[in-house]
């Protein structure tokens, strides 16, 4: 599986120092992704099997599964996210220090899966920006390891030092010193607020 996108011209003119420093920082980041296992349902069991002896993600430096968001940089949402749990999931995502990435493990977290019901979030990208989606119900552990490898390729092409030298990530859009990581709504076009409300005529 080659790199997702060929390296664009922007990287060439970023100057020697930035790309080399970026490469070093990205190399360090991608090989020590500490997962935050948000094990919600069946995918959580496959997540444990992945951390277990047979599939063993410590070969990729990702086995230090801390259960506190403060010490993790990869949030693996494994299982069905319900609307009652949505606030807790978003709070955990907010409380993770930057840089952070999100893997939506299984179809339930990617797009609501088999549950088109009144209580299930139809895809966690309505709540938080997701980097890699893993199909499968539950996906085999090697599918999730493949997702981590894809994420590592994605991290390789990030440019933290160049953004730093060009002062890009200092400011914040809303000017209140408060960042908000908007959901990327890649799979489900954002349906927050578009559900049937109580007195809509379709219900009558």
């Amino acid at each position: 599986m080659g790199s997702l996108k060929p390296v664009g011209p922007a990287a060439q003119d970023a100057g020697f120092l930035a790309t080399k420093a970026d490469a070093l920082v990205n190399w360090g980041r991608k090989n020590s992704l500490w997962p935050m296992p948000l094990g919600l349902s069946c995918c959580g069991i496959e997540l444990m099997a992945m951390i277990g002896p047979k599939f063993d993600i410590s070969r990729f430096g990702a086995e230090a599964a801390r259960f506190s968001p403060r010490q993790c940089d990869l949030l693996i949402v494994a299982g069905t996210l319900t609307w009652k749990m949505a606030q807790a999931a978003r709070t955990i995502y907010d409380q993770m220090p930057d840089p952070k990435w999100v893997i939506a493990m299984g179809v339930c977290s990617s797009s609501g899966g088999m549950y088109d019901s009144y209580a299930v979030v139809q895809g966690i990208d309505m709540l938080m920006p997701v980097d890699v989606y893993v199909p499968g119900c539950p996906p085999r552990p090697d599918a999730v390891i493949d997702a981590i490898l894809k994420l590592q390729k994605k991290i390789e092409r990030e440019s933290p030092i160049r953004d730093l030298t060009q002062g890009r990530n200092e400011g914040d859009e809303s000017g209140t010193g408060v960042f908000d990581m908007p959901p990327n709504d890649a799979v489900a076009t954002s349906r927050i607020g578009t559900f049937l409300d109580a007195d809509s005529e379709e219900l009558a």
Partner: protein
Amino acid sequence: MTDAQTYEYTPGVPPDDIDHDDPLHGEMLELHMGPQHPATHGVLRLGIQLDGETIRGCKPDVGYLHRGKEKSCESLGWRKFFPHTDRLDYVQPLLNNCAYAMSLEKLGDIEVPERGQTIRILIMELSRIAAHLIYLGTTAIDLGAVTMFFFTFTEREKIYTLLDAYTGHRMNNTYIRVGGVYADVDASMIAMTREFLAQFPSKIDEFEALLTGNRIWYDRNHGVGALTPEQALAWSLSGPNLRGCGVDWDVRKNNPYCGYESYDFEVPVGTKGDCYDRYLVRIEEMRQSVRLCEQAIDRMRDTKGSDFLTRDRRYVLPPKDKVNDSMEELIHQFKVVTDMSLPKGEAYAPVESSKGELGFFVASDGTSAPLRCHIRAPGLMNVQAIPLLAEGRLLSDMMAIIGSLDFVMGEVDR
């Protein structure tokens, strides 16, 4: 350690016999042992009131994994609800399948052929072993024995490869159908199962060597969360939690189904009803399941070649090759796929799951979609009993209590 102080129990209200200006009891610290916590084995939230280290009040809050399965069953219909039953108690998917299939067979008086029943017993006992391995692995890692997690998951991976060979998928394998099983079991699978069953008892001895005599495991579990038989029955506990307190009740023995009465196995029963007894009961249950699996495999030989799925075409899909060349089979398939309807009435078929008595109460009005499909979850009763065992104890005992009650949130929240 003083023995189990049992406060006069009113749910969620800390006893007021503590005067708060006595320096030994500070103010009440309220915290969430929340939906995202390694020791709650899933998304359960406990609202805990702590007085120093002692739990004064504990109120479980469930529903963080409520996916509305009973509602989707009413719109999906009988046949399409099978994959949902895998995701109920997701550490033993096939056992939920069998429970659901049995309640439908009871509703429609459908006879499962001999070989189908034997395969089901073999599959259910393998799922029970897998579920108890998850209990052992996660409870041990919560109490500090990290190697147990890797030991039990190595064994569980072997069961995954077995089920992969039987059913085509490691987990959530919808292999059971109304009236039998989906595919036959051939000689290579039986050889693999025999090989696994041959080496598994020695692995259980390894687990016991690591835990049973272990001083830390003994002190963390002995006398913690003690249950009297009357309490267990009043709180509708069942399965290993009930047998741990000395009540000899096992649905496989007392309401036998699927041919269990013709198998010979014992039912382990504890004495004191504390976490340590529940642990011993589950370890012994794994050994009994191995015996059951071996007997099921021996029976497989003399029913070789006979059909594993009933021939009653009202509920069962005809084999694919027949459908292509016979008009009648094509009509059967079309009728079953679009509208497999069951006769009017209610039915409840209890099954001995690894957590307790699991059953599907199905009410049908004669159409292809159920009027009501209530899932009787033993896990919900286990969660309900947490405050009874946890209040008055130290916070670190909460891990042993939650581990030993052994519930899975998919089944609790449905």
